[in-house]
Every structure is written in C-alpha cells, then in structure tokens.
C-alpha cells in the first residue's frame, strides 16, 4: 500500500465520517450508571448484566469442556489454543511470585478469563442496542431496531429517557417496577433542558419532545429502550463482587501460610505505639484495596462504553474505530491487571511481617524466605511447604 493510497483512503474515510454526522445526526444520548432490570420474562430484580454473566458462565464452561474433551499429549485445535493462552498467563504470573502461582492459578486464571470475555463482550454488535421497549408500566418486546441510520456495529445508542437530575423537582422517589433509576445524559441534553420539565409521570419517560425521534429506535413514541445485554464488568456489583473474592483469596493465602500470626501484621503489639499505628494503616490500606479494585475495573469498562457512545454520537462512521481498538486493549489490560495485582497481593500477604524491612523485596516472594527472617517466627521459616 503506497503512501498515496493510504492518504486517499484516510481522506475518503473522513469525508464519509463527516457526511454521516451531517446526514444522520443523533439528537441525544442516554447512559445509565446502574444496570437496568429487564422486565419481560425475567424475574424481579434480574438485570441485564446478570443475564450476560450467566451467558458468559455457560460459555466458559462449554469452552472448558470442549477444550479438555479429548486430551492428547501433543495438543491440537482448541486444546492447543487454550494451552497457549493459559501458559502465557502462567508465565506472567510466575514472574510475579514463583512460589504461590501453582496454588493460586485456578482462581487467578478464572478471574482473568472471565473478566477478559466480560470486558470484550461490550464491544460486540447488539450489546446495548438490542433491547426491550419499555412503555411506562408495560413491557413490550420489540425486534432489534431495524432502520438505524448508522450501520456502525455495536452502536450503543438510546433515547433520552428521563430528565436531567437537578433540573426538576419530581425526579426522585419513584416507586418504579425497576428499582434502578435512570438518569439523564451528560451531554446533548442541555439544549432540551428547559422544555423537559413536564410531569415525570409515575415511573419514567414523560418526555414529549422525543416524539420526532421515535423512528430511530422502532419503539413507539414516548418509549425508552432497556438494553438486553450489558457487560458485567460495567456493573458496579460485579466489580465489587470480584474485588471481594480477590481479597478473600489473598487473606486465605495469608492465613494458610502463616496461621494466626498473619494478624500480627495488622495488630502489631511489639513495635510500640508507632508499630501499632503502622499496623492499623496496613489494615486500612488492605481494606482500601477493595474499592480500588472495584472502581478500577468498573471505571475503565464503563468509561469505555461511554466513550464509544460519545464517539458514535459525534461521528458515526469510521471515527470510533481507533477507540474500539483502544477499548479492546483496555479490556485485556484490566483483566490482566486484576489477576496480576491479586497475585502481587498474595505475595505480600504470605511474606512474614517483621520489624526490619531491609531484606524485604516487595512482592517477590521467593527470594527472601531463605532463612533471613528467623526472628521470632520460629516455626514459620518454611512457607514454601504449605
């Protein structure tokens, strides 16, 4: 491909992009921070991210069964692919902590694989755009919106469903069938800010100004769209659950390797008052990892979704492509980091706490157990054999 061909292609893409924005403008976008409850045939409180979580569960189990159905010494096909992936990941974890990688790998591998496909799931076409039209209290199922002007795959594109908060007084306190609240958009709604203050009837969507945009979704005027699928990592509940699981695993390894003395790291009665406070700070920082894990995963994936929505809103054709690539990369990195950080914290947790931190090499657990720390933990010099 000569430089001239590439230049021509780029210019054509830009022209098509700008034209698509002029010809097929979107008026406003709406995203929800909380996962929406599906009303249709699903039980009460069942959100779209739960549905996808179950789907991914089944998918992973089928994948595992298929890859290990006929194990051969020389792997071929799916077994080969899965072995390659897991071996690469195992190698990376082994660089972090050589001792405990064997024991911790089942959990960490699961965290990695599940979070990876959960992050990438949000990029598939249809996720976020296929959904259920929701008209006040009835839920009417609709086909996927057929005549979307933008052919962009995965256009997460909904109607504005509720007034922006703070603009009107009767937004809160809705006794809605869906427990989650829907909130206005961060951009694109400002032009309609003044004429939306009509009564938010009962539960939701009292927005008359959307009548002319009803054709975009295939829903009846005044309806909103509840997406059928939402990646679980974009749901705060899943991220929190995963963070709690990681911390439980870390504490388990801490107790398994050191016994009750593990608590001596946090409630340090030997170092005097200063040592005591250091221990309390360690405890606080240990607990603070849970919101850190949660918000890291949730923030990255949800912000990625919002970024894609905004990019598609701005220029529907071709411009979102680099951002899609970026989101693929971010999805992989976040899944990888979750598992790697858990491994690093396991390495920290199994290192015995001692008062002098000279030989303490951070999370490299296998270098400094060799008998340097026989200080008082007489029976615990052999963490390797647990």
């Amino acid at each position, binding site marked *: 491909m000569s430089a001239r061909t590439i230049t021509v292609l780029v210019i054509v893409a830009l022209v098509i992009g700008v034209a698509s924005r002029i010809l097929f403008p979107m008026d406003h976008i709406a995203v929800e*921070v909380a996962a929406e409850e599906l009303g249709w045939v699903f039980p009460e409180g069942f959100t779209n991210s739960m549905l996808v979580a179950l789907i991914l569960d089944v998918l992973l189990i089928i994948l595992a069964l298929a890859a290990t159905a006929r194990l051969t010494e020389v792997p071929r096909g799916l077994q080969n692919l899965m072995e390659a992936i897991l071996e690469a990941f195992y190698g990376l974890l082994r660089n972090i902590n050589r001792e405990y990688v064997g024991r911790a790998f089942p959990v960490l591998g699961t965290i990695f694989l599940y979070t990876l496909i959960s992050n990438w799931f949000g990029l598939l076409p249809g996720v976020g755009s296929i959904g259920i039209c929701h008209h006040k209290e009835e839920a009417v199922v609709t086909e996927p919106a057929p005549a979307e002007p933008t052919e962009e795959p995965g256009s997460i594109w909904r109607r504005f469903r509720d007034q922006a908060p*703070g603009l009107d007084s009767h937004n809160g306190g809705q006794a809605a069938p869906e427990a989650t*609240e829907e909130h206005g958009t*961060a951009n694109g709604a400002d032009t309609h800010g003044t004429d939306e203050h009509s009564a938010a009837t009962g539960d939701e969507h009292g927005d008359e100004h959307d009548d002319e945009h009803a054709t975009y979704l295939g829903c009846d005027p005044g309806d909103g769209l509840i997406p059928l699928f939402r990646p679980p990592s974009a749901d705060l509940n899943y991220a929190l659950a995963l963070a709690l699981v990681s911390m439980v695993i870390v504490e388990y390894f801490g107790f398994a390797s050191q016994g009750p003395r593990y608590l001596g790291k946090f409630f340090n009665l030997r170092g005097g008052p200063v040592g005591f406070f250091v221990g309390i700070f360690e405890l606080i920082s240990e607990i603070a990892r849970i919101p850190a894990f949660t*918000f890291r995963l949730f*923030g990255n994936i949800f912000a990625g979704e919002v970024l894609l929505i905004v990019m598609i809103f701005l220029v529907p054709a071709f411009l979102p492509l680099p951002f899609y690539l970026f989101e693929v990369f971010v999805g992989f*990195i976040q899944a990888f980091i979750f598992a*790697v950080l858990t491994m690093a914290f396991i390495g920290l947790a199994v290192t015995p706490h001692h008062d002098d931190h000279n030989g303490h090499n951070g999370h490299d657990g296998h270098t400094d157990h060799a008998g340097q720390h026989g200080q008082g933990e007489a029976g615990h010099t052999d963490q390797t054999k647990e």
Partner: protein
Amino acid sequence: MEESGLRLVATALAIGLAAIGPGIGIGIIVSGALQAIGRNPEAQNTIIPNMFIGIVFAEALAIFGLVISFLIGFGVI
C-alpha cells in the same frame, strides 16, 4: 448558582483535575521503564509487566475521579 449549572461544573472539574496527577505520574513511570529497557533490552519481559502494574496504580486515581464525575453528572449523588 443553579444546581444544574453547578452540577455541570462539578462534573467537568472532577475529571479534569483528577487527570493531572496521574498523567504526570504515568509519564514518569513509563519514562523510567523506557530508560531501563534502553539500558538492558534483554530484561524487557521483566520490566514491561511491572511497568503496567505501576501504570494501573497511577491510573486508578484518575478513574476514581472519573467515577465521581459520573456519579455527579448522572445525578446519582
């Protein structure tokens, strides 16, 4: 000062200010990693995963600001 206007300002400020520190921090981290790779290209496979771990810690702070910005902007808080 209406609440809607303040909300917009808060949304923008939350993420805008939160991105300054981690931006500088990530620059420092990657700079250190690149220098280390330059000195010792064979140690690349050790340096790069550790660089990503450092980046993730720094980026998490920006993400905290982004989450607060979302919570304010979408009216959750």
